[in-house]
């Protein structure tokens, strides 16, 4: 399955969930938030939210700013 994570194309297994993506991008999931196709996916739903071809996924965290 082809999805776009943080602006870059990535390949994941067909049974991949939001949680799979988060785990592959960061080892410190506290303070992380995820949006799939511009909609926030709550932390409690990461394990059960399936992905589909061409989904756009943003994995964000707090950084210094403002």
């Amino acid at each position, binding site marked *: 399955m082809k999805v776009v994570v943080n602006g870059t194309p990535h390949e994941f297994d067909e049974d991949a969930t939001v949680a799979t993506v988060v785990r592959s991008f960061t080892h410190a999931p506290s303070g992380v938030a995820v949006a799939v196709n511009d909609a926030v996916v709550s932390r409690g739903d990461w394990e059960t939210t399936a992905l589909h071809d061409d989904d756009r996924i943003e994995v964000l965290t707090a*950084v210094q700013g403002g």
Partner: protein
Amino acid sequence: MDVKDPLVIAGESFTSRLIMGTGGATSLEALDEALAASGTEITTVALRRVDPSARGSIVDLLLRRDIRVLPNTAGCFTAGEAMLTARLAREALDTNWVKLEVIADERTLLPDPVELLDAAERLVDEGFVVLPYTNDDPVLARRLEQVGCAAVMPLGSPIGSGLGIRNPHNIELMVEQASVPVILDAGIGTASDAALAMELGCEAALLASAVTRAHSPALMAEAMRKAVEAGRMARLAGRIPRRRYAEASSPTLGRAEIPV
């Protein structure tokens, strides 16, 4: 004075009236030292894509210091972008407080008033405590308050410019009419700018670059803490009116008659 004169935002009390942003610090260590010296109890962070190679976390640092995290929507140009960022920040940081920034262009980083007001109203409806970074426009400030913002945060001058408070008269007008805190946000370059903000009646001052990009951030942070305290005390004490001519402070009665 600290205990008797708290800063109150959305029903929550704070002892410090200095809100320090975290942008621009050269390292987490330098930032940590500056935050401690500033005495701040609220600090802003931005939300960005995770960097798998990042070392250390700003959130861990703030938790250790027991400083409240105020996520911003920096870099957003539309109400829609700002709203999604605010929702992501709420999810990531477990807070419904947001420093709402909707900017018009990269060169000035001035707020886009139309998008800002739209986003503010909709985020208030979604249950956010909205602290909008706004222009030094008393009318826009009134509109932001009307839609339910918990504070209004006018710029003194453009972000990172260090140009101080370019329109103190407008800031005073905003203070006069507001029933939510007015927090001077952006443009502070040095301690006297922060003191002036408080003397004009602002409830707090928010700054980042002035400290994080100073030659000695921790020393400037301490200067800012003292300036905000001094400015607040001067505001409460009440300054003397400005006069065109001198008014002697020594009595004229009882002077010796000395022949010329």
